[in-house]
């Protein structure tokens, strides 16, 4: 028995494969791809010979096999002519297969296509409607532009045919023609209007599709077809309210395909047209309420309705209805519907925010859905929904989601959360808390500008420095793996380390801890030794350490810092080595080191990004737009022999560029002030804030000395609250002020008294008198601006102690006022002479003008420098 089977198999295998079925069976019997290829190639060869033989009986089988091979993926172009010949055959079966072959094998690019045109022309006029339909179908599928032009008139004629089958196909063939050759669309306009009145649904569907395409291609057609809106409305009404129609019913809904098409056409016709939209309001409401949404069919219609309502000028009630439908979709268990609803809501949230807010909870639930595409869309939608009212709740939810989100989401989420927090933060503390939490959760995925924004925020909220640095210290102690968090914390600790160590014990997540100097430095060291450190982190830690060296006082700590820096002077990374060496060198400049390591100036507020596009372009644009600023400032600073920014070539964005920018922005405003109005809201407002140590002031004055004896203005050392400005910068600011020498004669000319005579000025108020030096003020109100007071300062030397040289005069005014000083006429007061200096006080609130003075000079008699403090004020009433 078995051997019989084997023999019969072998014989069968050797027989030629006569029918298509045999070929298919043979191919399916192949176990490997190589076998299949062999079979197919053998068959291909046989087919080629068959084609050459021109046997019309076998043609059908030949082409069938050819198509099969083609579908498998093998080349079959040699059979194209066969298909043509088959299509020319009178038998319907052959024709059908021939045209199918043509549709599959021939595309526009082959020249054979032109031969098809003739054949099509004949068949378009055939008496058998199926053959006509076949020709139209082929035409519709593959016609090229030339073919379209040739056969356009035929198709037009057929559009008016009495046969619905033909009309239907003709409509779609026309669709193809106008897609290929848009200019021909005018031919079909009148005929297509007639199609709308057709009774057959098939024709209606195709007619509507044709008109839709025409309107989309040529917007001017929209005008023409707008008149058809009432007709469409009537059709839709019939469909919705008609009873059960077995012909068109799909699970209870009458011809949903037609309904959907009509709705789409209505959408296009009524866009931007109030009248048409009004006509549709009723029917749209009816469809929306009557269609049941339990099945997919109903949902498709509702979906299309919602889209239509959103795009036309519908009335408010209708829009709310649409959003409610979408809300219902959202609570549907079927994923498809939720996906579609979220997608649509994303598009429409801009228009109907109020209504969408109501569904906020469901949207937040979707964040936890199993399907990632739903999660993604829900996330986008949630961000769009944030406003002042719900920012707390939403951010809380989003941060909770951040914890479990996939990494691909994390980066965009951190960015968007920081944006939202910036725009809608109710108060600074909440803002800082939110950013902190975000850094803890996803510090590794935080972008540079977000980090920069956070630092800016911390620097600006001076009252929260202690809180912030404590929190950051605590979180760093717990976890040093998140790079973003590490960078931010290291920077903050570096800046405000003294606040941290002097703040005593604090509580974080029910753990009381205290940060002392050793532990802080120890923490920084552990970061350096840790496994997560990279070059950027090392750079930050270096800088933080050197900053701390001037903020922390314990000797052991200083030694430790030196030790760590020393270790890195031999680092392999050039940047690190450079920093370490430079910082080590700074230790030998103990007198100016603290000045250099002063607190950073508060950066000015800048939003993280201007517009919605958060590509890499905008941040670059922002930074580059600040670039032109420094250029002339650089020149200015260069003139004075001071470098532009400390830590020149580092790629440490946050340290270098804010420094440059913040150094230069007060510069810029200084210059513009002088050029425009002498008083502006420049950065050099005087406040009774302190420099950390008197050394700073002397350090500052050392800088001044370097640059020549120009009297500057300084804030006097007072309480120990951290100053937001670096005194170094103040120096530069004041230098910038006094630089345009052309101004000073003008200034001094403003209210200058001509006489340098010895007797005290009659209306002067004496402020200080010691060692032969008398300082008196002559106030006067500015002519142009009532809140500005010009004070002439007279330095008189009665010669009792000889020449007074190296005179430095500094003054401070209360917080509500601003002070500007001009250069003194001379810093050496000869005996029996008077030198002058002009001060201007801007006093918008008209508070009492009090001055705190710091005077420093060298007496030639003793050769010693005298430093003195004095208070003056207030000016008596009526002084000016």
């Amino acid at each position, binding site marked *: 028995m078995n051997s019989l089977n084997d023999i019969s198999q072998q014989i069968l295998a050797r027989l030629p494969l006569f029918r298509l079925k045999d070929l298919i069976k043979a191919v399916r019997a192949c176990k490997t791809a190589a076998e299949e290829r062999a079979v197919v190639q053998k068959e291909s060869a046989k087919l080629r010979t068959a084609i050459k033989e021109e046997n019309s009986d076998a043609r059908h089988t030949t082409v069938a096999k050819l198509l099969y091979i083609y579908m498998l993926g093998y080349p079959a172009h040699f059979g194209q002519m066969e298909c043509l010949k088959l299509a020319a055959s009178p038998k319907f079966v052959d024709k059908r297969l021939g045209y199918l072959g043509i549709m599959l094998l021939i595309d526009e690019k082959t020249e054979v296509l032109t031969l098809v045109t003739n054949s099509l022309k004949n068949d378009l006029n055939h008496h058998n409607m199926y053959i006509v339909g076949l020709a139209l179908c082929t035409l519709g599928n593959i016609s090229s532009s030339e073919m379209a032009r040739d056969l356009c008139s035929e198709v037009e004629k057929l559009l008016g045919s009495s046969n619905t089958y033909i009309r239907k196909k003709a409509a779609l063939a026309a669709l193809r023609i106008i897609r290929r050759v848009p200019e021909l669309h005018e031919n079909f306009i009148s005929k297509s209007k007639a199609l709308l009145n057709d009774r057959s649904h098939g024709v209606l*569907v195709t007619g509507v599709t044709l008109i839709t395409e025409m309107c989309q291609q040529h917007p001017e057609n929209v005008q023409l077809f707008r008149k058809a809106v009432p007709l469409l409305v009537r059709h839709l009404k019939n469909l919705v309210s008609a009873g059960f129609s077995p*012909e068109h019913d799909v699970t209870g809904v009458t011809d949903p395909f037609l309904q959907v098409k009509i709705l789409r056409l209505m959408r296009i016709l009524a866009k931007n047209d109030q009248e048409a939209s009004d006509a549709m309001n009723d029917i749209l409401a009816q469809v929306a309420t009557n269609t049941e949404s339990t099945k997919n069919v109903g949902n498709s219609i509702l979906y299309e309705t919602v889209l239509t309502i959103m795009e036309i000028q519908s009335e408010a009630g209708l829009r709310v209805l649409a959003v409610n439908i979408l809300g219902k979709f959202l609570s549907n268990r079927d994923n498809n519907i939720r996906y*579609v609803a979220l997608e649509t809501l994303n598009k429409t949230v801009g228009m109907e925010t109020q209504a969408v807010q109501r569904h906020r909870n469901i949207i937040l639930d979707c964040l936890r859905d199993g399907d990632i595409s739903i999660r993604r869309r829900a996330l986008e939608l949630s961000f769009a929904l944030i406003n002042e009212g719900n920012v707390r709740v939403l951010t809380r939810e989003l941060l909770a989601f951040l914890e479990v989100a996939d990494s691909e989401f994390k980066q965009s989420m951190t960015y968007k959360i920081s944006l939202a927090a910036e725009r809608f933060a109710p108060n600074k503390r909440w803002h800082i808390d939110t950013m902190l939490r975000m850094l803890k959760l996803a510090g590794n995925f935080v972008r540079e500008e977000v980090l920069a924004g956070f630092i800016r925020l911390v620097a600006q909220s001076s009252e929260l420095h202690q809180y912030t640095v404590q929190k950051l210290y605590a979180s760093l102690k717990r976890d040093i793996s998140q790079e973003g968090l590490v960078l931010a914390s290291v920077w903050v600790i570096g800046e405000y380390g003294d606040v941290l160590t002097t703040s005593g014990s604090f509580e974080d997540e029910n753990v009381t801890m205290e940060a002392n100097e050793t532990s802080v430095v120890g923490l920084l060291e552990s970061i350096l030794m840790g496994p997560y450190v990279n070059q950027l982190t090392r750079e930050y830690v270096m800088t933080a350490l050197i900053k701390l060296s001037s903020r922390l006082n314990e000797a052991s700590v200083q030694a430790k810092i030196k030790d760590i820096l020393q270790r890195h002077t031999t680092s392999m990374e050039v940047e690190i080595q450079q920093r370490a060496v430079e910082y080590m060198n700074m230790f030998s400049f103990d007198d100016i080191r603290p000045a250099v390591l002063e607190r950073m100036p508060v950066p000015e507020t800048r939003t993280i990004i201007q517009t919605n596009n958060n590509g890499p372009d905008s941040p670059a644009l922002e930074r580059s737009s600040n670039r032109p600023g420094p250029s002339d400032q650089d020149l200015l600073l260069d003139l004075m022999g001071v470098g532009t920014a400390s830590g020149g070539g580092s790629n440490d964005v946050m340290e270098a560029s804010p420094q440059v920018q913040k150094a230069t922005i007060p510069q810029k405003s200084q210059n513009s002030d002088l050029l425009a109005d002498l008083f502006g809201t420049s950065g050099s407002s005087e406040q009774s804030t302190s420099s950390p140590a008197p050394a700073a002031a002397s350090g500052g004055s050392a800088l001044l000395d370097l640059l020549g004896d120009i009297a500057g203005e300084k804030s006097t050392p007072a309480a120990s609250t951290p100053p937001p400005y670096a005194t170094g910068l103040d120096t530069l600011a004041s230098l910038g002020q006094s630089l345009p020498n052309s101004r000073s004669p003008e200034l001094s000319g403003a209210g200058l008294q001509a006489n340098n005579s010895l007797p005290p000025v009659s209306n002067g108020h004496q402020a200080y008198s010691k060692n032969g030096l008398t300082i008196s003020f002559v106030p006067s109100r500015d002519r142009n601006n009532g809140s500005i007071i010009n004070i002439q300062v007279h330095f008189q030397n009665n010669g009792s102690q000889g020449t007074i040289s190296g005179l430095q005069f500094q003054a401070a005014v209360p917080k509500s006022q601003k002070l500007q000083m001009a250069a003194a006429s001379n810093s050496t007061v000869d005996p029996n002479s008077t030198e002058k200096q002009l001060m201007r006080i801007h006093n918008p609130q008209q508070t009492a003008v009090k001055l705190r003075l710091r005077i420093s000079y060298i007496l030639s008699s003793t050769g010693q420098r005298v430093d003195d403090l004095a208070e003056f004020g207030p000016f008596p009433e009526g002084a000016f």
Partner: protein
Amino acid sequence: MIHFVLIVNRRCQTRFSRYYNDNEITKQKSGFELEIARKTVIRKPGQCLFFKHGKYTIVYRIYASLYFVVGCDEQENEFGILESIQAWVEAMDCYFEKVTELDLVFNLEKVHMIMDEIVLKGSLAETNQERVLAPIYALTDA
């Protein structure tokens, strides 16, 4: 507009394919089909029936071991496409009397013809089963 229709089985073999977009993809047809088939077959039961692939929106539906995959552009109503797929399968079911995968394999050209009646160059032509199948029956009668 519908750009292409594919029927693939679980092993990502193409059983039927039809393109309506002027043969943009014919060169890398098999590679393209394989890619889409892979993406479709790998989806879990709870997931959405539509997803994006390049510029196409892919809508698919599973019947027994076959995946009916339709690639359309973004403007199409996805639910409508789902319904069309259903209509098409019902038509084939009626014609072949309980259609199976083997029917598709051995009668490929008939499947093409049925498809031609329902969708013409990417737009829906007819969904009524009777009218769709009439020309096909005429074929065998003639």
